[in-house]
């Protein structure tokens, strides 16, 4: 019997892991960067790294089903004659008609309206579907200005000047030829079938001083009625928030890197911008330093998935959150019922992110008439409303347990962090200690 030396187990590189190798091969074969939808998929410090303390001897709770816990929020009271009043502090983020189908936009409007909140247009103009089915609709003012017109500005309930988004701070919109149908092309004044790559900067203003003048123009056009939001990607949240306030914003929207996009480069999504958790405290700090906290409202988005995330964001000083990816999942995105078709596209339910290709089995991120039929906007709207109500109930459950009769009474003191990173980012103590990294002298 021959003795064989024991072999070592084959070992793959942590640096050159399977995904990385596959991407190198894909790039070499195709000569184009990887484009996908969604937000950052890498593991990041997030709300999961925070815990609520709940009540104890020094804090007493409210009765779960008997004592009121307010969830309402008013957005835009700084300058607007007609601020937005929402029943819940969870809004629907901007997503374009073009990236989404008409029925999907309708479903978002229906769900938001049933739940007492607002929805938002996107980089493609306002459609009748969403205006008609959204009690409160925020109209985005984007660098591309596709479909922008004064009539829609006036029939919006608020205006959101989009400077950037979390998935791609510094990047413009992208909608590839497969999704530029006749209707999308007409709304955007573009030839059908071209690859549309929107500008990353606004065409008629640059910098905070210009922004102030631009906001004045929008207010004058709409007779100072509409709240004006300024949305930024999670780049420099302290300064971006302060500058937006200086420019006259009623509401600042900060979108962290987990916030989704319809399509952009994978390298952009995963490597530019900061996690949502890292953006909140600097943004709140900027408002507090200016004496504008709760006067200018702060909306945060990017990876909000449940009522606990809502409660944690509010405890850190946010006025409302916004959801995009979670709303699409509630409509039916990435549903395992379409697994066989996801497999045909070379992916699996839960991982499908080639929204730009327009072949979405769930019929949401597509302009294909046959696929679009798969989404029933009434049923999907109901699912979204259910989800929003569950999130709200969950947040209330936590708030009552912390003794709060309003979600907005939650505070950083109610939280601890499970990791040093999260403690430093959120500015709350590491669990079991009174240590907040970066504060208390070290």
């Amino acid at each position: 019997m021959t003795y064989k030396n024991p072999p070592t187990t084959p070992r793959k590189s942590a640096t050159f892991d399977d995904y990385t190798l596959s991407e190198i091969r894909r790039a070499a074969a195709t000569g184009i960067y990887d484009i996908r939808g969604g937000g950052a998929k890498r593991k990041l410090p997030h709300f999961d790294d925070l815990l609520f303390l709940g009540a104890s001897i020094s804090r007493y709770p409210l009765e779960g089903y008997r004592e009121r816990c307010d969830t309402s929020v008013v957005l835009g009271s700084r300058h607007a004659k007609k601020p937005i009043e929402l029943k819940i502090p969870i809004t629907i983020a901007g997503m374009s008609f073009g990236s989404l189908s008409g029925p999907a936009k309708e479903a978002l409007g229906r769900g938001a309206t049933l739940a007492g909140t607002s929805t938002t247009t996107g980089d493609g103009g306002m459609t009748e579907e969403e205006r008609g089915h959204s009690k409160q609709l925020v109209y985005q003012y984007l660098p591309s200005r596709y479909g922008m017109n004064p009539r829609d500005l006036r029939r919006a309930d608020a205006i959101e000047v989009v400077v950037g988004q979390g998935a791609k701070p510094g990047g413009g919109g992208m909608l590839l030829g497969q999704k530029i149908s006749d209707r999308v092309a007409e709304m955007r004044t573009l030839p059908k079938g071209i690859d549309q790559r929107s500008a990353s900067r606004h065409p008629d203003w640059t910098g905070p001083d210009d922004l102030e003048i631009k906001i004045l123009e929008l207010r004058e056009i709409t007779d100072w009625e509409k709240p004006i939001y300024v949305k930024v990607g999670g780049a420099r949240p302290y300064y971006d928030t302060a500058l937006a306030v200086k420019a006259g914003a009623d509401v600042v929207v900060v979108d962290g890197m987990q916030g989704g996009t319809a399509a952009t480069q994978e390298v952009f999504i995963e490597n530019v911008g900061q996690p949502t958790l890292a953006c909140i405290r600097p943004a709140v700090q900027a408002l507090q330093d200016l004496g504008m906290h709760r006067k200018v409202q702060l909306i945060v988005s990017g990876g909000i998935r449940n009522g606990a995330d809502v409660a944690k964001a509010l405890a850190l000083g946010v006025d409302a959150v916004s959801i995009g990816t979670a709303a699409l999942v509630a409509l039916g995105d990435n549903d395992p019922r379409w697994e066989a078709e996801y497999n045909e596209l070379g992916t699996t339910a839960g991982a499908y992110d080639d929204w730009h290709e327009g072949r979405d089995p769930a019929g949401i991120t597509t302009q294909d008439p046959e696929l679009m039929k798969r989404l029933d906007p009434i049923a999907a709207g109901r699912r979204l409303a259910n989800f929003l109500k569950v999130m709200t109930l969950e947040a209330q459950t936590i708030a009552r347990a912390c003794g709060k009769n309003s979600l907005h009474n939650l505070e950083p003191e109610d939280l601890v962090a499970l990791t040093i990173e999260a403690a430093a980012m959120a500015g709350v103590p590491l669990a079991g200690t009174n240590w907040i990294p970066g504060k208390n002298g070290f």
Partner: protein
Amino acid sequence: MPATKLSRTAAHDPRVFDLDHQSLRELNQALHNLAPGSNETAWEVLNPKGSHSVAVGVDQPVAIDVRGSVGYYCGGMNSGSTITVHGSAGPGVGENMMSGSITIKGDASQYAGATGKGGLLVIEGNASSRCGISMKGIDIVVYGNIGHMSAFMAQSGNLVVLGDAGDALGDSIYEARLFVRGKVDSLGADCIAKEMRPEHLELLQGLLDRAGVTGFKPSEFKRYGSARTLYNFNIDNADAY
């Protein structure tokens, strides 16, 4: 600009706004309050002194004479009114205009007619950089020269320049048509000189007529537009960006 003799004064006529004594808000609100078919069709703005957002979002077919120079976004999102600025205009004049017309007797700063969807913008002096940026159907006629990066990502509409154009004209242009009579310092990515066919000569003559230009023939102009090579991404074109 020389002072213009006025036939009316703000003290006597509610359609004359003196921004020395009345606010921009009052002016724009009065213009927005106009009902369709109103007989109050002639308006005058005195002492604009560089005010921003003069006569923005007007959506009735009225005439507005602005006696002096304006700041940013004069006539922004104009829908149907006829605005004449008897002076120069700051950045973004006529931005996102839908219809109607705006005439600037002097010069215009950056981004004139940006993202305009329709109507006619006439600049009787020079226009600065990024004139007609992202234009989406507007017609722009400039008597003088235009600056660099003009008609960047221009999607639709016509830009006519009687003088010269700066660098990178029509960079990443889509389907807008550019007519330049003088020299062009350089063309931007995917913008090329194109043949002036009879329909273009006819189109250009119509634009010159609408803008009140006389003494120039369409045949003196060159036409520029998209080569359409960048409409669908190809890695081998990456050097063009």
